[in-house]
């Protein structure tokens, strides 16, 4: 592959790096893998080495949790260098078969799960207390346009999140609507798997799609979609919110009453793409605090220094070779030690990874992992 001379240096501002090592020092996956992001930033300055560097397996260990970017005193995004290297491999056609399936499915079906587009709205059937989920016509007006997230459309474990979000919207009398079958992948994982071309296509498609509706705000169920639409699709002009921001707002306005008690000790796990990346720390905690019966606790590692669950950054499809304890297991052990009954999250990926870790540790009798939407569902 031909990388134009100096492209990397310029694109990632590599000469701005002072090699202080704060990035690698704070990188959570170093306890499991050999990834050294500082070294990559150093070595990619040399164009002649790019090819060889892109072939190193460690570039796939990064979860893109944003820790390195937060810690960088020069304001760089070191992990983006790894995505650049990944994209070189993608252009060569040289990626894991699992990632190939996911990317081809996004191209063919608009979701990475190999599921047909025609089934995208099957989750909407028979929701308790909801006559019919509102799907908007093109051009139709709604205060809130909800983007469901592919995982919430198809994964039976995550579908209840979308269903609960609808219940909350209905209960609070929000003027909401969905796109329907035409809704498509946000491109977050596509970009993180290094497929820049496909991401550009999705960016255009989504921008055009959102433009076709007269909505005041776009609300995302997943922090990953949220981050992409808010920060990476430059032409989306409508304000983008995460559902926790909207729900906190409607609770504050007194539109949603939470009456059902959940008598439990709850510890909240900050999803990287909501917290570290977008600084939404307070709204989820505010919502949890308003659910009767909940005693809210804090991890030692919370907010900006929250521990990544390893679900993002394309890691759904590219397994690390490491046999060391998964970070999600570390997180669950911490929660267990604190005596938490529930680990609350606000992200489909965190829910999957942490719940899996909980089962692996055999704590599924005494503890559970739940998305805030599930707790809301129990409380309204």
């Amino acid at each position: 592959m031909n990388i134009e001379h100096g492209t990397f240096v310029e694109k990632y501002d590599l000469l701005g790096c002072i090699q202080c090592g704060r990035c690698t020092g704070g990188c959570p996956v170093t306890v499991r893998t050999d990834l050294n992001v500082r070294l990559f930033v150093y070595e990619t300055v040399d164009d002649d080495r790019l090819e060889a560097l892109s072939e190193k397996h460690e570039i796939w260990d990064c979860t893109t949790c944003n820790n390195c970017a937060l810690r960088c005193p020069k304001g760089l995004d070191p992990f983006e260098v790894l995505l650049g290297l990944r994209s070189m491999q993608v252009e060569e056609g040289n990626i894991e078969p699992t990632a190939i399936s996911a990317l081809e499915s996004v191209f063919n079906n608009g979701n990475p799960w190999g599921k047909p587009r025609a089934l995208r709205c099957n989750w909407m059937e028979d929701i308790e207390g909801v006559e019919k989920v509102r799907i908007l016509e093109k051009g139709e007006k709604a205060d809130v346009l909800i983007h469901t997230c592919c995982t919430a459309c198809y994964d039976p474990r995550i579908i209840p999140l979308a269903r609960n979000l609808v219940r909350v919207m209905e209960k609070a009398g929000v003027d909401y609507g969905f796109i329907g079958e035409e809704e498509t992948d946000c491109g977050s994982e596509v970009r993180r798997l290094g497929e820049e071309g496909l991401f550009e296509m999705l960016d255009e498609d989504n921008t055009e799609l959102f433009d076709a509706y007269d909505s005041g705000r776009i609300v995302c169920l997943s922090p990953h979609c949220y981050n992409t639409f808010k920060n990476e699709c430059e032409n989306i002009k409508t304000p983008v919110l995460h559902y926790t921001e909207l729900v906190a707002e409607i609770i504050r306005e007194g539109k949603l009453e939470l009456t059902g008690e959940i008598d439990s000790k709850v510890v909240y796990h900050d999803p990287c793409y909501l917290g570290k990346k977008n600084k939404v720390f307070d709204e989820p905690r505010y919502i949890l605090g308003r659910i009767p019966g909940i005693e809210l606790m804090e991890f030692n590692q919370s907010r900006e220094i929250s521990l990544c669950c390893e679900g993002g950054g394309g890691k759904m499809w590219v397994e690390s070779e490491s046999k060391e304890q998964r970070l999600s297991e570390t997180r669950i052990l911490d929660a267990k030690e604190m005596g938490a009954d529930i680990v609350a999250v606000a992200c489909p990926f965190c829910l999957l990874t942490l719940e899996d870790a909980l089962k692996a540790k055999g704590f599924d009798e005494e503890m559970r992992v739940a998305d805030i939407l599930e707790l809301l569902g129990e409380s309204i």
Partner: protein
Amino acid sequence: MHDIFVLAEHREGELREVTLEILTLAGQLAEQSGGKVTAVLLGSGIDEYAGKCASFADRVLVVDDPMYKDYNSAAYQQALVELIKAEKPHLVLIGNTGQGVDLAPSLAVELDVPYTSDVVSVTLEGDKPVATRQYYGGKIDGRIEFKDADVYVLAIREASTPAGEGGKSGEIQKIDNPVTTEVTVRKFLEYVEAAIGEVDITQSTMLVSVGRGIRDEKNMPIMEELAEAMGADLSASRAVVDAGWLPTDRQVGISGKTVSPKLYLAVGISGAFQHVTGIKGADVVVAINKDPDAPIFQYADYGIVDDLLKVVPALTEKIKEMKG
């Protein structure tokens, strides 16, 4: 003429079961049409197979020549063309097998007669065969009708008709090799077994898959025994791979392998979305799980709701018994 030719299939010193299945099917059709069933046996030193075929056929046509010791479609095709031209059977049935799909289509072209493949059932309507075959991975059946011809060639799916008891005593007729010139365009070399220890589960036809329900590494031997008895390979959910009880390359699912076996036997696997995405290509899925509400039952064709520690050893015994 209503006679039916069935091509006998053998490999490495064994007559393949599919031969008896198709002879049984041919017997049923011949009963209806009043024709005779001829087993065509090409090989070398094959008296034993001829005897076996005879109990399922009215006649066994044997060409015993070193040329046919091992399968070679080019040689087989030449012989069959000569025999069919000479005998003019109405139907030619061949297994839709690794050998059959390598032979039947080109044979039909050379004879210039109708052909279809992977037939799951055949009936006769008047004089003509009508075939049923599957489309879209078995989601739809299709009815195949043929243009008028003297001979029809059909490749029949394995295990679509169970082999009967036999009981006929067909005449065994040895004839001279109709092919007199050596076949050079294609030459058989050898059979090679898949290397042991090097299991690629994406290629496995039978998989016994282990989940967290196995609970302890010390229970793994019962799974190994079941797999061995069934002639299956072992695969696993991520939970089992994470625990280190099977190597990473045995993981099925979104971050593991996508598999397409004929049988996927999921034992102690809950059926998480990330797992079942990997088994879309499986023909038959069977689940053993003690939880009747486990999602895996929504993907399975057959289920057993019970403790795997009880079911697995019992099943292993039964399968061993059956295989003798």
